[in-house]
């Protein structure tokens, strides 16, 4: 099979997948039109999505012709599905989310046109990280909450807000990947005599920077993001070092941190209490989680159909609990579809990491970004299903939130670049 033919097949496959996603979304948009008497708004949103999706596909054909054919359609399916859900659950936010989708695709396409060697990411790792941290520090000082109450995690005004902690997620992964790639031999220590001092020298700045991030995030009481950072860091450290012991120690530390957070923060105490036994307080503090579980029950296997269920009983449904809305209106089938989409996306990312096993930075970055998506989606889905306490993170691509959407499409852009480039300069440190 010739090179062009492979490329054409991949493009066709991507277009086919986008077509399937589009058909699914079109049917749902029409049903939502009919069910909710929102004449044409869902269909208009769909048309916007379709135009954007096709434009993105064509632009990517030019910038990254040999990209992975699964990543972009899955991201578009999830974001389009999320857009319709937001129109169904919180119509006032739908057009704003649509604008964020346009912007996010712009960012993704911009990343796809940047140099494929990604040295610009690796070389300025401290710059990126300090930039992110500075934004976060500014948020601590000047942060606002668009809803008027709650944690002040946003920067912005006049209806346009951005959450810097979202930006910090990929920045931290890039920093960790870059640093661990540089000191991989030292960290890995494959069967050789333990060299504690060099290891400490290698891990010290890493832990310091990571600790700094954690402190800032905890300072903002954004404990979900802190947990996400910790687990991603631990996973990357394991991949880089091959030491399972780090994972065990890390898990023990996480447990200790959880106990401390339970004692220190009221919000953590509340979330753990209602996680352990929500039933006595089903009409009080545990209302949200009990309603979420009832949404799963109401959805059964086939779901109620878009616009025909009652997920709006769940407070903040369009953000933290959008997965429960999927469960109620698309049933177990919808839940499994979302799960499979995330699983495929994450596995494609990990596959990219495996493909770049000889280029540590790219391998670690692909693995880190995959884990970012995996852990974030697992944290929120696990919380909604009462497997773990609620952490307050959003469901990537689907939940309402422009910052989250933008950053997730930036990840998609990086995945697409990683799936295309064949650079070899990774074997040496910059």
């Amino acid at each position: 099979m010739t090179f062009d033919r492979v490329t054409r097949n991949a493009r066709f496959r991507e277009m086919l997948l986008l077509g399937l996603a589009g058909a699914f979304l079109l049917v749902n948009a029409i049903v939502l039109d009919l069910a909710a008497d929102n004449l044409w708004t869902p269909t208009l949103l769909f048309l916007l999505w379709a135009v954007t999706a096709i434009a993105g596909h064509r632009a990517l054909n030019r910038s990254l012709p040999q990209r992975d054919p699964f990543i972009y359609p899955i991201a578009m399916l999830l974001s389009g599905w999320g857009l319709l859900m937001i129109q169904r659950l919180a119509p006032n936010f739908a057009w704003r989310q649509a604008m964020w989708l346009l912007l996010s695709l712009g960012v993704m396409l911009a990343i796809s046109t940047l140099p494929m060697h990604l040295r610009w990411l690796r070389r300025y790792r401290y710059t990126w990280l300090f930039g992110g941290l500075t934004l976060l520090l500014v948020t601590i000082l000047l942060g606002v909450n668009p809803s008027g109450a709650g944690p002040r995690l946003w920067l912005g005004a006049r209806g346009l807000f951005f959450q810097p902690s979202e930006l910090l997620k990929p920045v931290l992964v890039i920093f960790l990947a870059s640093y661990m790639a540089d000191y991989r031999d030292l960290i890995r220590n494959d069967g050789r005599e333990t060299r504690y001092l060099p290891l400490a020298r290698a891990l010290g700045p890493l832990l310091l920077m990571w600790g700094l991030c954690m402190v800032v995030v905890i300072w903002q009481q954004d404990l979900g993001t802190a947990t996400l950072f910790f687990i991603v860091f631990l996973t990357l450290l394991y991949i880089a070092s091959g030491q399972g012991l780090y994972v065990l120690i890390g898990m023990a530390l996480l447990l200790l941190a959880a106990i401390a957070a339970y004692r220190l923060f009221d919000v953590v105490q509340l979330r753990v209490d209602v996680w352990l036994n929500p039933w006595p307080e089903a009409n009080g503090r545990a209302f949200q989680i009990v309603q979420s579980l009832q949404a799963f029950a109401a959805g059964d296997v086939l779901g109620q159909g878009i616009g025909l269920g009652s997920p709006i009983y769940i407070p903040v449904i369009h953000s933290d609990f959008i997965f429960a809305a999927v469960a109620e209106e698309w049933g177990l089938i919808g839940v499994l579809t979302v799960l499979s989409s995330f699983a495929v996306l994450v596995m494609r990312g990990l596959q990219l990491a495996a493909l770049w096993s000889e280029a540590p930075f790219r391998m670690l970055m692909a693995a880190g970004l995959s884990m970012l998506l995996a852990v974030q989606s697992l944290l929120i889905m696990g919380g909604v299903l009462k497997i773990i306490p609620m952490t307050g993170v959003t469901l990537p691509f689907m939940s309402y939130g422009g910052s989250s959407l933008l950053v997730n499409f930036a990840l998609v852009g990086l995945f697409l670049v990683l799936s295309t480039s064949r650079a070899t300069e990774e074997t040496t440190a910059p």
Partner: protein
Amino acid sequence: MKELRRVALATLSAFLLIALTAAYWSVIAAEGLLQREDNPRLVEAEAIIHRGRVYDRQGILLATTTVNYDGIGLRRLYPHPEVAPAVGYYSAQFGVSGIEATYDALLRGDEGPTLFEKWLRDLLHEPPVGGDVRLTLDLQVQRAAVQALGDYAGAIVVATIPDGAIRAMVSAPIFNPNVLDEDWHHLIQAPDAPLLNRVTQGVYQPGGLLETVLLGTAIAHRMDTEAPIPGGAMPVQVNGLTLDCGQPLPTENDPSLHEAYIHACPGAFTQITTDIRPAVIDQAFWRFGLLTPPDLLGLNTDIGDSPLPLAFLRDDEAIRAALAGQGALTVTPLQALEIVAAIANGGNAPLYHLVEATRLPTASEWQPVQPVGMPRAVLTRQTTEQLQTQMRSAAVEGIAADAQAQSIYPILGHAATAYSGPEATPLQWFIGMIRASDGSAVIIAVVVEGADSPTLAAQIGGQTLDAAARIYISQETAVPQITAP
């Protein structure tokens, strides 16, 4: 890299755990979650049910579902609130009662559709449509009974013989089920308990109501009911009460049991154990259905506490109290109706029923509802005939004469007084019937709370019986033939 493989495996396992947990809540634990009281979807699902209709025997609409006043959602409408004691109420907030409760599954559309049809209905979000119920109740008779009872608290139950069909069921004070949600707190706190269906669940002292049972027992055991009973006209002292004849005897002679019955003199009946063993009287109470809850096809019927059998009583006053209907035995108006039903039905207690037919939501034909069980033998035909004669005498010249005064039909009946509670609140009872030559009859039991006049229940009963007889019995066939008063 083995680390990447392990991470991928762990991640996939986590996704699998999510999938399994979702399946658990969506399928395995779903039923329990959805039935929780804190599930707001229950109210929503309830609100879209197009509940079926309830009709009276002539097809007059008694309950239906209609669009709400504001044009949004559905509401239950009761065009004739006076049937509330039988039809009951339906409220999404406060539940169901009466026929609305007994036939809830049919009315809300759970009966009829197959599992597949239900599944398809749910899938397409079509609102459930309920089936219909046609009662034996007759709105005309019901209205007459309500009108006759007026502002008194009490109960009236009317049935036809031999089919045992309930034609009127009045429990006063009556509530209006159309405004139940608004009135709820007032209704459940009201001391006169409007939500209590007194016909089936109101337990009362029987007082002189037992005289018919005791007379029947005496006749059945060949006691000489014409023989004078010394002191039979004397007042009876029980539990601090003085129980006298319901009306003065025409002579000063000792009355016979027959005369004591006609004029409602408890003294004669409290001496009946001289001739009849207490165990025999216990059996009579049981045969007349005074010790068991009557079966009214699922409608919740009640009886008071089971009294200690007469045969076990050693105290003379306790025996006197029991025979005077002021002991531990209490009865509901439906049980009182059982007494007269057996007498009207040639000695056999009929099977009562309140529902004539049902219709599934998908069907056009009514399916008749047959009472389950066998009529119970209570008295011999000979005893029945003698009791009918005595009751006719009571209505012509005795305690129930006020009933006859209300009707052009020949009434057979008996009235009695009882006292209830620590304040000895008087209760007035009336049981009666109008018979036809073909064996059919209209029967009634009335209880009026807090009324002093011993003839009040008879007047109310007579008025109601007359209204019912005009529908069910032609004057030409009424027995015994009499001329209009």
